[in-house]
């Protein structure tokens, strides 16, 4: 059955319908015409042959008159039989129970006898030993001298073979079948040709539509002629053009929006730079100031710190969005790096570590620091001790898990935790973070990927998020709840081959 399906498969759909339509119509027409003509021809042939046989018999019967003895003797019956026999027939002469002749009595049906008993000549086609035969029968009448016509009691039957007629008829039938088959073949060929002329443009259209759907906004369909297909093609082209223009417009708008955010963030840096520069002085002096000035200074300082962090995070994010985020890779020992991160922020004693030495990886150390600091900071701030960080290695991957024993992540929080500006606990009056920490960590993780552009700018990553090429291994950051309570964030970084 599979081969049958494979054979039929290219004929599914429109082509099959066209073919069947043509074939059906043709076969129907051919059948009707050929069939009709066959039936007529057969009738004509048989009728002619029957008429000829009856006429012949009638002529022969005329020669047996005048009758000489009745009831007939066996001899006279034999004479009659001989008189009536020609080359093409077998004859049977019957009188009462006597019968003479080559024709077998079994060929004569009761119906035939009944009809000739009414004083008519009658004939019937029968099956005579497997071959078709015509049986003609009649009573022999005598005309009295007084002009009255009386049956003599003698019945005469003649059987004629219809083999020749059958041969002619079957020849006609063969021709009819042959014509039908030929017509069917021609119809199918015609159907295929027509289908191709229709399906060709349809296939072109489909190909163009698939390409359009895949993002090739320049795909167009050639327009041939001026029929409905050409109309469809023209409509498609117009639609594609309009779509391309809209998409270009949207891209422009998106690029403008991104640029605006980048510009704004960038512009914010300049005033902030001046403020930040003197913050240390302020912080140091705040304790020497009388209240409320001191408190005011502390507030300004804190606000400036927060604002700076926010602006820096925003700028990081715009770099990811614009594809200008670059990796500065270095081959480092991950355990040493993580310990340095903890040490730099004074977390060494606050975190349980499981960091086996010697696990090397080619990563961007600054970005790794950002990720680890964010995860551990979140764990310490929003989770509960003990906070742990664990480093493991798998073939092709390096895995860092940061876990805490806090309340964990609520079910509605979990899918959104990496969204920008998403803060799980909205009840917190003031959040220390900018709301971008996890989003940046996530982007930093994803920036580490194993394709041959890993060390270069991933400038064409715009819009590429959903379409990672198959075969790329991409770094990932996922959040989950531990079975025993608390949240666990798992960072997976792919190992990158050393360039030779």
């Amino acid at each position: 059955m599979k081969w049958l399906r494979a054979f039929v498969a290219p004929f599914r759909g429109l082509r099959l319908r066209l073919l069947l339509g043509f074939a059906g119509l043709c076969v129907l027409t051919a059948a009707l015409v050929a069939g009709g003509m066959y039936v007529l021809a057969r009738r004509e042939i048989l009728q002619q042959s029957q008429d000829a046989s009856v006429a012949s018999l009638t002529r022969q019967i005329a020669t047996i008159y005048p009758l000489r003895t009745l009831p007939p003797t066996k001899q006279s019956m034999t004479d009659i039989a001989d008189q009536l026999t020609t080359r093409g027939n077998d004859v049977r002469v019957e009188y009462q129970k006597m019968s003479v002749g080559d024709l077998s009595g079994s060929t004569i049906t009761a119906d035939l006898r009944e009809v000739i008993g009414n004083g008519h000549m009658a004939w019937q086609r029968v099956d005579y030993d497997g071959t078709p035969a015509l049986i003609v029968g009649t009573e022999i009448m005598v005309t009295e001298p007084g002009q009255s016509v009386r049956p003599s009691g003698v019945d005469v039957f003649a059987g004629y073979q219809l083999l020749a007629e059958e041969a002619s008829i079957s020849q006609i039938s063969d021709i009819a079948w042959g014509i039908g088959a030929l017509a069917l073949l021609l119809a199918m060929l015609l159907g295929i040709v027509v289908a191709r002329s229709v399906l060709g443009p349809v296939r072109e259209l489909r190909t163009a539509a698939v390409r359009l759907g895949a993002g090739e906004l320049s795909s167009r369909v050639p327009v041939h002629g001026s029929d409905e297909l050409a109309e469809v093609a023209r409509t498609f082209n117009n639609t594609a053009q309009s779509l391309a223009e809209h998409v270009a417009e949207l891209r422009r708008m998106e690029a403008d929006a991104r640029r605006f955010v980048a510009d704004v963030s960038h512009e914010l840096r300049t005033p902030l730079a001046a403020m930040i520069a003197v913050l240390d002085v302020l912080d140091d002096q705040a304790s020497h100031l009388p209240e409320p000035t001191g408190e005011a200074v502390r507030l300004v300082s804190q606000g400036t710190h927060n604002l700076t962090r926010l602006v820096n995070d925003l700028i990081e994010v715009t770099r990811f969005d614009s594809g200008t985020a670059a990796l500065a890779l270095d081959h480092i020992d991950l355990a040493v790096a993580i310990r340095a991160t903890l040490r730099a922020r004074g977390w060494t004693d606050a975190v349980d570590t499981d960091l086996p030495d010697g696990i090397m990886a080619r990563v961007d150390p600054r970005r790794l620091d950002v990720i680890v600091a964010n995860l551990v900071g979140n764990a310490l701030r929003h989770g509960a001790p003990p906070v742990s960080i664990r480093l493991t290695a798998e073939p092709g991957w390096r895995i860092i898990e940061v876990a805490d024993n806090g309340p964990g992540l609520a079910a509605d929080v979990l899918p959104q935790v990496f969204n920008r500006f998403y803060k799980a606990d909205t009840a917190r009056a003031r959040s220390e973070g900018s709301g971008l920490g996890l989003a940046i960590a996530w982007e930093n993780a994803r920036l580490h990927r194993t394709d041959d552009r890993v060390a270069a700018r991933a400038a064409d990553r715009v819009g590429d998020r959903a379409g990672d090429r198959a075969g790329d291994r991409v770094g990932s950051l996922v959040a989950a709840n531990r079975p025993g309570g608390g949240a666990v964030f798992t960072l997976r970084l792919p190992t990158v081959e050393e360039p030779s």
Partner: protein
Amino acid sequence: MSTVLLIEDDKDIRDGLALALTWQGHTVHAVESGELGLAALAANPADVVVLDLMLPGIDGFEVCRRIRASTNLPIIMVTARNDDIDVVGGLEAGADDYVVKPVQARVLEARIRAVLRRTGADPAHPTETRKTGVERHGTLAIDRAGLVVSRDGTPVGLAPTELRLLLELSASPGQVLSRQQLLESVWEQAYLGDSRLVDACVQRLRAKIEDDPANPRYVQTVRGFGYRFGPL
């Protein structure tokens, strides 16, 4: 007490940094353009230059090159972003280190102190016990006490960071030092610093001491691990 030449065109940032650095104990000369900066340098020698790359007139890269061409002053550049063009360009032009705007005073202070230590000019941190004697490696002669490096008898003008890097590497000849280790020992940065600093400095160092910088004898790259002095 060290003298800082601050070249920054934005008034607020300039005032802010000048204030903070002064508060830290430095003497600060703040100018608003590259031309003024070069002129100030000619008139009053400074111990360290803090240079903003985005300057009107002569841009920061050019100023850096000119300063580096005539002196061995440590230069810390201030960039608006830390992506390739600015940082790499600045390092190639001869900067010893960089900070990213907006920069906290204490971060800048730490970098200034670190770079001054490399020159031995920081009074807050006297230099370590000087080794006496001149080491000879191939055509190089390294005087650790006098902080002079000669090649074929001719002294080579090395920027402080370049000198410090060479001293660090040659102190353990044949031993591979990773970039991170070098960042920590030479640049005194937290472990996770920018390894491009190391790469750029190595390039500049090779250009000055190697016979064939493309095939270095002294400062060799060990792929995937770091750098190594020799073996010759």
